[in-house]
């Protein structure tokens, strides 16, 4: 699987994602600088990593969403290239308009950094292929601005169209309807607050994140 990781100033999970992709797919991803205008040819997956792009000045992900490379990412997404935004990457995807809604300060105003239980919701999407629908998994979260918000009509539409991919199985950050991850209408763009790339090896305290990347790999095969 030919993949790329977008590198924004301040992102601190880009290398973690690169290691996860290399381990699972057997192929190192291209690391693409945010100021670049073009992406490598033939990409099957683009990852927007977690971290604090541009220091979270303005809003989390707001400045990154207007980076030159995001035009190429948006065009690639329109062609059906899979895009995965993790944590700050999720924030970037909503700020860029590639996913509906927005991510706000956690309801408790605390930075939440721990393993949480998630329920896998959409069984058919490529991103959840590595899991059984309704399965409970454990992934780490580390975020200050993870409360997912959207108006009621948007939330209803997301639910009806099966666009909720992962839901918190416990209270974490005040997200509307406990949403932890959503996909676009085509099911090709996933935004996810928890960090699957931090649950790849047993030494991480769990390997549930590995199955997301394995599922993607199988979906591409």
């Amino acid at each position, binding site marked *: 699987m030919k993949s790329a990781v977008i590198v924004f100033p301040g992102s601190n999970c880009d290398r973690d994602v690169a290691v996860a992709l290399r381990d699972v797919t057997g192929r190192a991803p291209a690391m693409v600088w945010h100021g670049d205008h073009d992406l490598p040819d033939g990409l099957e997956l683009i990852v927007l990593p977690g971290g604090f792009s541009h220091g979270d000045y303005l809003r989390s992900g707001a400045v990154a969403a207007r980076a030159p490379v995001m035009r190429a990412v948006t065009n690639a997404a329109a062609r059906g290239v899979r895009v995965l935004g993790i944590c700050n990457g999720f924030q970037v995807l909503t700020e860029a308009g590639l996913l509906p809604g927005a991510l706000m300060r956690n309801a408790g105003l605390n930075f939440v950094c721990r393993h949480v239980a998630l329920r896998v919701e959409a069984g058919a999407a490529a991103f959840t292929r590595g899991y059984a629908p309704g399965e409970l998994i454990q992934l780490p979260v580390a975020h200050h601005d993870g*409360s997912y*918000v959207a108006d009621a009509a948007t939330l209803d539409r997301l639910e009806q169209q099966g666009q909720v991919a992962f839901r918190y199985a416990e209270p974490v950050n*005040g997200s509307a309807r406990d949403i932890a991850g959503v996909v676009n209408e085509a099911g090709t763009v996933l935004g996810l607050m928890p960090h699957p790339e931090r649950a790849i090896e047993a030494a991480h305290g769990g390997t549930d994140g590995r199955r997301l990347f394995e599922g993607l790999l199988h979906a591409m095969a």
Partner: protein
Amino acid sequence: MKARVFVTLKNGVLDPQGRAIGQALAGLGFDGVEDVRVGRMFELTLADGTEVSTIEEMARKLLANMVIENFRVELA
């Protein structure tokens, strides 16, 4: 010329920062603070003659997240 852009959360969007600040004000003994909403103000120094519509475009494209926020432009 200078312009100020005020960005505020839309009505109905929960503002946990505002709520915490409201509680802190109550803790200081200020009674009657019914609600606090936190916003952000941008002071822009612009070329003379910059159209208000251009400033509004800046707000829509970057300064405000139109999913959750409103904005207001004030020429100084």
